[in-house]
């Protein structure tokens, strides 16, 4: 299991590097808040440990669940709000940017 996890971790990091590097600076803030929402994925870890938590430890897992869900919902929602504001002119076809000469 550990090797599988390690391979997934490395593969995700390498693929992520390729995809993330190509995001233009224009969208770096939404990218970051979106990635921020993804770091709330720890909510699934919280769910797993909540199920098996020993007596008296459930409170810690519950706190983790709440914090991680704030992270997830807040992160995706601010990203949604931001990206809705990015408006371009409605154009029929892709018009190429002509640099000034």
């Amino acid at each position, binding site marked *: 299991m550990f090797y599988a996890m390690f391979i997934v971790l490395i593969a995700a990091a390498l693929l992520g590097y390729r995809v*993330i590097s190509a995001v233009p600076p224009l969208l770096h803030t939404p990218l970051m808040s979106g*990635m921020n929402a*993804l770091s709330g994925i720890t909510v*699934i870890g919280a769910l797993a440990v909540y*199920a098996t938590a020993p007596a008296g430890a459930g409170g810690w897992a519950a706190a983790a669940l709440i*914090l991680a869900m704030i992270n997830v919902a807040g992160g*995706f929602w601010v990203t949604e709000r931001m990206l809705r504001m990015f408006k371009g002119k409605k154009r029929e076809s892709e018009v190429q940017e002509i640099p*000034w000469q």
Partner: protein
Amino acid sequence: MAITIVFAALIIIGFLAGIRLMQSPRTALWGNRLGALAMLFAITWTFIATGQGSFSSAIIYVVIGGILGLILGQSVRMIHMPQTVALLNGFGGAASALVVWTAVLGYGGEGTIMLFWGTAGLALGVGSLTFSGSIIAVLKLQGLAFRIPIQLKGHGHILRVAILVAALLIIINMSFLGLYFGQFMPFIALLGLIAGFLMTLRIGGADMPIVISLLNSFSGIAAAVAGLAVENLILSGTGALVGVAGLILTRIMCRAMNRSLLAVLAGFIPGAQVKTPPVQEERLSFDAVTGISSKEGGEELTTEEAVTAEAEKAVEDTGQAAVEDKFPEESLSELLQNATRVIIVPGYGMAVAQAQMAVRQLTDALEGKGKEVKFAIHPVAGRMPGHMNVLLAEAGIDYEKLMDIDAINPQFAHADLVIIVGACDVVNPAANAADGTPISGMPILDAEKAKNIIICNLDEKPGYSGVDNLLYKQPQVITLWGDAAQTIPRLTAMINN
């Protein structure tokens, strides 16, 4: 087992596809939604896989957290996005720390003991560090506390000792002793909290984009390592994605600010040791002024600049009145009317002055007269990567007009007019001209190549780097000191008349 791996791979591919869609502003919204959908699947799958029915009490906490998150996400303003992201980073880091904390409390020696204690300790330490560091960053950005960088006695030493001791405790636990010395875990968390606190405490304003990117990365790393500890494929894969994204942005920010990450973390504040580059002070007077077309405007600027050269302090008192009296109406209006290609350079000062709408109206007025307007966006304009683009988009400016540094720099030479609003270091030619300053070699916007420049900054004090702006003294420049929310509308009025 096999189905777990397949499902994990699908979820991570979903996230990757979402990021792929974020490469274009046309599809980015759907990219974010795809990410949210994949997250929903991951949570649902975990509910099913861990055998908790929908009636489990866990769902109550999930719903509470979700609602709080939506309220937070709905209520924040775009200008406050850096502290929002920092706060959410902190929550993510804390959640990862709490996950391993709970796992440690319930650990009975199953799996590979050494790996468990190693990864659990690391996730706990990094998660705690992310939490305390983010909270300090939020307080700083929101202006609630620690606004100025604070350097304690022996700051660096305490920080290094905290990290070293934490690492030592993790290694001791890893040496198959974790079962006996699990009591070390609270100390690891405490040391992580101390390290995050110290690390962020001495960071100054314009270095914030670097720290936020770094904390973003840490929240991902904490999740990835926590994933290894609790043996969760999706968690470790997704955490790795976030960690990499944060590192990429950290590197971009460091390059754009001409700072090394270590120098930032060591609390080296450029403004603290001001090395003014050799400015040709003598040159400023008559040559410079005659370059500014109109006689009236010219003369007035002479006096103003002479005052500048005399004593900087004096300007502060008389400055306000001087701006009012000496607004070079004629030359400005001539410039604005005659220009056909205009580039606007916004900096964080524009956001501080809340002048986005004024800039939007100026843009509309210029375009109404058939002029072309573009925006030059420096990577560190704002308090987090890409922040300026969001603020301008909020003001309703089309994203097609927002150009990054590489795209816009060759176009300055063809611009008739550049209007700088609240930006200083990012247009300072000293970055290219002078050696040995904090900004030497930093990539800047080549505004100085334009035929005419109007600068609407609050005052002539140097920017964050503490380096005097050579641009202020150049012949093609007209400076309008004062609140951009007031000076910009006056420019707009001149165009409309």
